[in-house]
Each structure stands twice: as structure tokens, then as C-alpha cells.
């Protein structure tokens, strides 16, 4: 019997936009797969790539980092720093053979509940197809 693989996804979301967008998804009852676990930070600029690495280490099959749209950062420019840092880190993940689809950086405004649901749905589908990361198996 082959049961469908259900990936574990970590969501690292900024409080002002992406997390609020996830709240909005709830308020508008947008439906998306239950694979994501969300950690709230104040700004996407707070998100250290080690959070992503540790998530993979502890069982995540994919990680979503989401903040305010470029130009809309509640803290002026935190999301630019997130963008720069994760551009570098994504290249490193890729070089170590961690499929680029396992990490996603995106922007979600507080009003974009539907968009948040779509992003999570897309990512879940991709990771289902990709299978488990198996970071623990040596």
C-alpha cells in the first residue's frame, strides 16, 4: 500500500505582512493543506538562514520564508536584507544538493490571504512530488 507522502513544511513569516496574510487566509476560510507549521518573527529580516538549516535537520521537507512585498517592509528595509541573504543561502543549499524547490522565499501582504493559501498549496504539491528530504538518514 502506498500512502501519499505528506511533507513537513516550516513557514517563517513576518508578523506585519505574511503572518497577517496567513491570519487573513483564516478569516476568509481559504483552504490549504495542513502541512505547514508557522513561526512568527517581527520582520523577515530577522530570519537567520540557520533557522532554515535547522528546520531541515529536524524534519522539514521544505521551508517557506515570507515577508512584506518589496517596498512595503514595516521596518523600511528588512525584507531587502532577507532577499539578499536568502539569495546567497539558496545557492548554497542547491550546491549541497538540496533541491531548490525545498526552499521558497516569497512576499505576502496582510490582505493576501488567498495568495498565502495558494503558495502553501503549491509548495505542498511540489514537495509531495519531490518526496521526503531524508536529512536524518546517513
Amino acid at each position, binding site marked *: 500500500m502506498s500512502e501519499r*507522502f*505528506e*511533507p*513537513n513544511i*516550516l513557514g517563517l513569516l513576518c*508578523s506585519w505582512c505574511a*503572518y*497577517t496574510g*496567513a*491570519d*487573513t*487566509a*483564516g*478569516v*476568509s*476560510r*481559504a*483552504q*490549504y*493543506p*495542513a502541512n505547514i*507549521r*508557522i*513561526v*512568527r*518573527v*517581527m*520582520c523577515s*529580516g*530577522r*530570519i*537567520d538562514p*540557520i*533557522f532554515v538549516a*535547522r*528546520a531541515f535537520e*529536524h*524534519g*522539514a*521537507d521544505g521551508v517557506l520564508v515570507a515577508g512584506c512585498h518589496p517596498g512595503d517592509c*514595516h*521596518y*523600511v*528595509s*528588512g525584507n531587502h*536584507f*532577507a532577499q539578499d*541573504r536568502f539569495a546567497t543561502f539558496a545557492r548554497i543549499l542547491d550546491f549541497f544538493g538540496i533541491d531548490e524547490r525545498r526552499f521558497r522565499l516569497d512576499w505576502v501582504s*496582510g*490582505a493576501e*490571504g*488567498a495568495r498565502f*493559501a495558494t503558495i502553501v498549496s503549491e509548495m505542498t504539491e511540489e514537495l509531495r512530488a519531490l518526496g*521526503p528530504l*531524508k536529512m*536524518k*538518514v546517513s
Partner: protein
Amino acid sequence: MQTQSYDTLVIGAGISGMQAALDLAEKGYRVLVVERQASIGGTMVKLDKTFPTNDCAICIAAPKMVELARHPNITLLTSARVEQVKGSVGNFEVTIWRQTTYVDPELCTGCGDCARACPVDVDDTFNGRLSQRKAIYLQFPQAVPAIYTIDYAHCTGCGACDRACGPRAISFLRRSRPLRVTAASVIVATGFELLEPTELRKEYGFGRFANVLTALQYERILSASGPSDGHITRPSDGKVPQRIAWIQCVGSRSEQGGYPYCSKICCMYATKEALITREHAPDTEATIFYMDLRAYGKDFQQYYERAAAHGVRYVRSRPAMVSENSDQSVTLTYADTLTGTMHHESFDMLVLSTAVVPSPDNRRLAQALDIAVDDHGFFVPRDPLREPLHATREGIFLAGGAQGPNDIPDSVAQACGAAGRAAIPLATRTRAKPPEPPAEREVSDEPTRTGVFVCSCGKNIGGFVDVAAVTEAAQTLPGVSFVESSTFACSEDAQRRIRAAIDANGLNRVVVAACSPITHGPVFQQTCAEVGLNAGLFEMANIRNQCSWVHSGAPGAATTKSIDLVRMAVARADQMRPLTAQMLPVHPDCLVIGGGVAGMNAALTLADMGINTYLVEREPILGGKLNTLATLAPGDVAASELREQMVHAVQQRPRIKLFLGTEVREISGHVGDFRVTLDEGIGGEINEVRVGTMIVATGFREANLHGRYGYGNEPRVITQLELERHLREGTLGQPRSVVMINCAGSLEAENPNCCRIGCGIAVKNLRRLREAAPTAKLSLLYHDLRVYGKGQEEHFTQMLREVEPLRVRYDTARPPTVAATQSGLEVTVYDTLLRDELTLEADLVVLTAALRGDSETSRLKQMLKVAANGQDFYNEAHAKIRPLDFNTEGIYLCGSDHYPRTIADTMAQAAGAASRAAIPLLRGEVSVEAIVAEVQPELCSGCGLCLDSCAYGAMSMDALQNLVLIEEVLCKGCGTCVAACPSGALQQRGFTDPQLLAMIETAWEGATNE
């Protein structure tokens, strides 16, 4: 009878009343709030979402409700009404009638056993009579106070509730009784109602046809706590409607069919309802039948365009009548005003955007207060232009829907303004000191003892998530020593139980598994604080917004995920440490930037509140646009006259120190202690002033239209501001034919905004032109006629009769062109109603130019560290409930630098900004952000990788010690520097690496995936 004395009485506790009361209470004044209903919240809490941000209405209102109920300076009386107000400003003697609810508020726990026992079903008015409640009831789940009320009109007196009540809170012997109080000032914020078109506009079938609803009823249908739990269904048969239509202006903008005024909010709420409907159920057809689409607020036009892009259909039309079909669908007969043809169309459900009407109690209250109402029953200001917030009796002020249709941000702004004006008679009174923070329990040496409180949120969580399973799982988590579930964790009763559990079990961490920490975190933090538990020791697991609501189709997965989220929160809790918000003294003076109407009125209000104010104006004279404009609406007051009055008033106030011809050069510091460098320019002085707060009132400018519509090339093509100057100075000459083109440069890709006030200016200036040139041919080219502001619709109708301009509707996608001819100018326009191109001869073309924020905005926003949009209008902290605040603490805004507005609105806003800015000044202290970054010096290697990441200038390098330093008052707590630090030497309090990693590393502890 004992007489209590208060500083201010606030009548009505909707969003306006709540805001006014909080603004005064925060200043240290003692406020009595009297609300007619059993719960505070007003109309806003009935709404599903709010435009244009789609914020959940109750979610943003509920924290204010709780804050109000808890405020030490506020006394709240619900189910009460004001009977009589004697005396005068400074000493009003007020008689209040307290209606008994037969329930002892001290004893009621809000458990609801009484309602379950009650045998009487009553139409639920909160839900627009679309569902039923009991004769003993709570208005809505988040009601404040959360105390059941007996609806005496429907109660049969059977006593079932009394027998069911565990704490014996019900007593039929409780009597209504009068109460006497004194107050120095009064604010009237009694709100509005929406017309129920059973008589007026009965041709639309409301009350006769089951599937014809008012928009307010439809809000309840959309609401998750509404009669259909947020599912869109028809009242007649519970089926999901496929085709829904909205009819606009039902009872508005019609002398014969209702009320002559524009209800101002309907275009946007209908757009919102249609948009949300299509987001809920994308297959639903949503059609809006409208006259003019008045999307004239900030970001409204974009919201409307988004709705249209999402498939909401807009039909410019005149709906004639509605008939019901055998399947209880309805057929609407309407004339399409763009094509001039009649149509019949069927809809499963029809929503009527009905007129905003005054509360029926207004006339009685007007008598009790001895203040005036207008013909319709709205309270009237004693001077609609200069003093829009003053009722006709000294010391009584007006805010929100009580004086006419207003949206939420305008209501909030007026409420702040009324609070500012109402504070003036209080200037000499002693203020209550800010309450000492409750003593905190020292917990650092204790082993972690976490309490977990799981909320069912009625059915919102409990309907999909197995709350018992979550509760059980929580018990097994490390460090957890107490777990409890509740129906509504945010209810007052549940809060009491949380406090009791903390005390009884010595809990030193609290995790609430409920809804969003953004909306409800502060409520629970306050609860913890009341029993000595620091706010930093509290954490939420958002199992409603992230589980039950979004995985309602997969209850098993939703439950598993809820358990994971609770585990993560508990793991984080173990790592949490107390957060202390530092208190800083406040420099007691204020600075106002901009000496136009907004800036002058803000300074006047501040000075009269007893605050020393610096008023800075770039030009050598005060007045701003008053130096250009000819006349002002309403009342046709000469701008020069208002300018003289205001400048004189400013000069009379020794508390106002003027800096004319002065620019702001540099701003440093923070709320409580800003240092501002003022430069008087060449030959002048450079001054540094220290202030505690600042108000930005820099106004607007016309967009540059050079090269368009012949502007800049043809001297006879001018803008409205230039026309105003001609009218003012009498230099217009005798034009024979004037063409006015509205929306020049608006509603287009580069500037999608509607300037809001352009139509009103056009109406005003057409009348002035008629006076100046009685025989001239006057033409008005418009896209939509969006006249804005109280009394403006009537003014507009009158203008049409008197001036009889040629009106041509064009589409901004195909704007008119202006060409020079030998004899003058020629305007070519495609008339969308005649569907033909017209050519108009003119010797004067007046462009109602798009409006933008001041040209200095981009420079000033950098200094202020605040944000502005692409049109140079400043961004407020929150579009709905914080319209006068910047995100940067201690800085406020008012007037047209936020968005173009009328003089009356500007006056109100300026008073409001003054009220906001006065709060820290009168409190005398501010608390600093608690979740700031900190340096652990023993780990910092001084590499400086973090320095660039700070957008607030809070970081610097101590070259001597090779250490990074953080100035905590400047830190906003984003944590961007923390993620830049490779060694972990920087940490963000409340969001430390160990806290976040604890969540990340426990997220899948229970998972089976390998």
C-alpha cells in the same frame, strides 16, 4: 443619591465613542461611557471585513473594546441612556437612566447556561433578524461586558434561567434606576443606522421577498459568527446563491425616495461585499448596480479596480423595480444609463445598499442635551466649516456617524478630534497618574511551570479541531503543569479563570492556544500582568487562523497540526524570559510642521489643551492653501476671512511659538525627546528645539500636468487652484465659454487615485464662475460625480439647478483633448452617454488636476523615518483604526498630507492629531519597545556585519572596545541586525535564537515522516 464626578461624559460606545473615551483616558482624564446597548462595539462589530484593507472588523475592534473595559480611568455603563444634561461647560449635571438587565454583572460568568435553559426564541437583531436568540442572551460572542442580558420585552418570566444559573446572578428584583453624575465636557458619539427600506424604496421588495436583504444583513451572512457561520446562503432555502446583485443608493441621493445626501460608505462596502463573496465562492456572479462609483478615499479606487479585475460586474444604471419569481429568485428591472436601454435580469439574492440614517434616539437625546439636529435627525455642528466637532451647546462635541455618514477612519479621526476639543475645558484639572505597572513575580529561579489554555472559540475551533485531544496532548509536554480548555478564551470569565489558574498553580509561563497573537496577544498579556506575570512569559498558538479555519475539510490534520503548534509554543515558552518596557520621561512640548489649516488648527488645539507648541511654516506667512483659495465650502466663506481668523487666533496664543520662513533641517531622537533643527534660511537663525511629539501637516499640491490638455502651452488652460486665485483676485476677465475637465491626471496607471475633493471643488467653482460670468456657457466634463463631504450632495444638486452646466460624461480611458484654434480653445470629448464625440469651443479650460502630497514629502519622510506612497501621501499606522498616527511613535499626521480632504475634515483631523500628540505629553512618560535587539558584549567581535542592516540609526560602533552598541529607544525591534550577526552576539528580546529554534526543532517531534 450619590453624585459621581467625571471629567468627560461619552455617549455611545461604537468605534467613535470608544476612541474618544480612550484618547481622554490615556491623557489621565476620568471618563464615563454610557452605551444604550448591552455591549459596546456599535455598528463596526457587526461588519465582516473593512475596506480597503479587508481587515476583519471585530478583530480590530475587539482589542479596543477590551482596552476600554479595563482602563482604570474609564467607567462603563451599558444598557443606559442619558436623560438630562443641566449646567454648563465645566460643570454639566447629568442624569442617566440605568436599565436593569436583571443580571448581576458581578456574579455572571458568561457561561451561557441561562440561554440554553431559556424556552423563548427571539429574532436576533444583531444578526439582522436572520437567526434567533433567546430572551436571555449575549449580543455576540466577544461582547463587552460579557454579561448576559434579559430582553424584558420578550421574557415570559418563567424563571428557567434563574434556576439554571449556577452563581445565582439572575434577579427579577433588580430595578432600573437613575444615576446622577457631573462632567466638564460631553462627547456625543451615538452612531448611525442603516435604513430598512420597508416604506421608502419599497419597490425593491425588502420585507416582502425573502431573498432581498440589506447590506448590513449581508455583512452578518458573510461573518463567521453570523447566522450561517460565514457560509453564503439564501435566507429562503439555505441554498448557495449563484447570482447576487447589489443596488446602490437605496434611500440615498434622492429627495423623493429617501434622503438627499450621499451615504458615503455604500459604494465601498458593496464593493467589499462583492469582492469577498467572489473570494469565498469564485463561481458566484456578483453585480453592482450603481449611479456614480464613489471610490474617493485613500486606496479606494485601487480597491474598486481590484474588485472589477476579480470579476465583480459594475452596471451604471437606475434600478426601477424588483419582482419575485416562483423559485424565490428576484427579477430586477433597470435602465442602463450608459446605453440608455431597459433590462430585466434575475438574481438569486439581492442586497440593498441602504442609506445611512440617524439613530431614532437622536431627537430625544438632542432634547436632553439641548443641542440641535438637522432635518433628518443628525446632530449638527455649530459651524460646519470651522468647528465641525462642536455641537450647538458649548462644551458638547460630536463624533462619527452621529452627525452624518462617516467611514471608520473618519469616525476615528473625529473621535480623536472631539477628545482633543473636549480636553480643553479640562486643561486646569488634575489628571490621574499612569497606573504603576503591577508588581511582577520573580520567576527566574523557578523551574518552568507552563499553563496551557486551549480555546474552542465556540465552534470556530471546536467545530473542526478536537479540542479535547489538544488539551490531552498538552498535558504530556515538558514543563507543562496545568491545562484547561474554554469556550471563548478571550471572554472576561475565561480571563478570570486564567488568572486564578496562574495563582493557584504558580504558573510562570502561559500558552494560549486560540487565535492570532496579533489581534489577541495584548489581551492575554494584560491578563497575565494583572497577576504579576510578565508579558514576555506569554505565548500563543494560533490554532484558529492556522488550523480550524483553513483546514476545516480535514479535521484530523487540523487537530494534529494544532497539537504541533501547541508543542512548539510550549517549547518556546520554556526559553522565554521577562520583557521589560523601559519608561522614559517626555519633553512636554510639541512641534507642528506646516502652517496651513491643518497645522494651525492642530497648534491651536494643543495650545488650548495647555501644551507649548512650535509651529513651523516654510513660507514667510501662515495660511497654506488659504492664501490661494477663493471661497470655502460649506458656507461660501472667503478663504481670506478664515485665514485672518485663524492667524489671529494663533497670534493670540502665547503658548504657540511661530517659526515662519523656516525649514526643518534635521530630526534626531525619539518619542519623548525629539531634537529638531530649524533653519530660517539665508540670513536667518538656526534653532534646535526639543519636543516630545510632532505633528506633520504639510498639505498637498496639484500634480504637474505640463504638456497635457494644452496645459503649460496655452495660457487659457489653467488648474482649479489657478482659477481660485483668479476668482480671489478678480483677474478672471469675462470668459464666454468655460470647460471644466475633472480627473485630469487621475484614475490612470501612473496615478490611480481619485482625488476625492475635485468634484466638490468643481461644483463650488462652477457656481463662482456663474456669478463672475452670468452669461458664460459652462461645461463640466466628468468621469464619475463623486461629490464628497457633508452637505455636498445637496449643494451639488442645487448647483445643477442654478448653474445649469452642460454635463458630459467621459471615460478616463479616453480623456478629452484640448487644442488651440484661431479664436480660442477647442475641447474634444467622447461622451459615453451620447456615445458620440463632441467638440466644445472654449476660451477658458479649467483642469481639476490630480492631487499629490507636498513636494517636500520625500525629503521630510527620510528625516522623520516614516513612509509615504507613490503620490507622496504619508502612510498612516493603520488605515482603519489609526488614521492619525505614524508607525513611528510620537509622530502624527493630519490634513491633506495623508490624502486630500475638505476643510471641515481637516479641522477635525487636526484636532484629532493634536489629541493623539497630547497623550504622551500629558502622561509625562512613554514606554520603549520591549522586543529590542541587545548585544552580548562577551560574544561581539566587533566585525560590524550588523551595522548596515539598521534602518533606524540605532546601532553604532564603539571603536575603543571594538563592540557594537545599540540605542534601545531608537530600536524598533525588527531583528534584522540579529540575523546579520554570525556569532549570536546580537539577540532580539522576545525573539531570541533559542526561542525560535526551540519552535523549529520541536515542530515535527510527533511526526512519523522519516
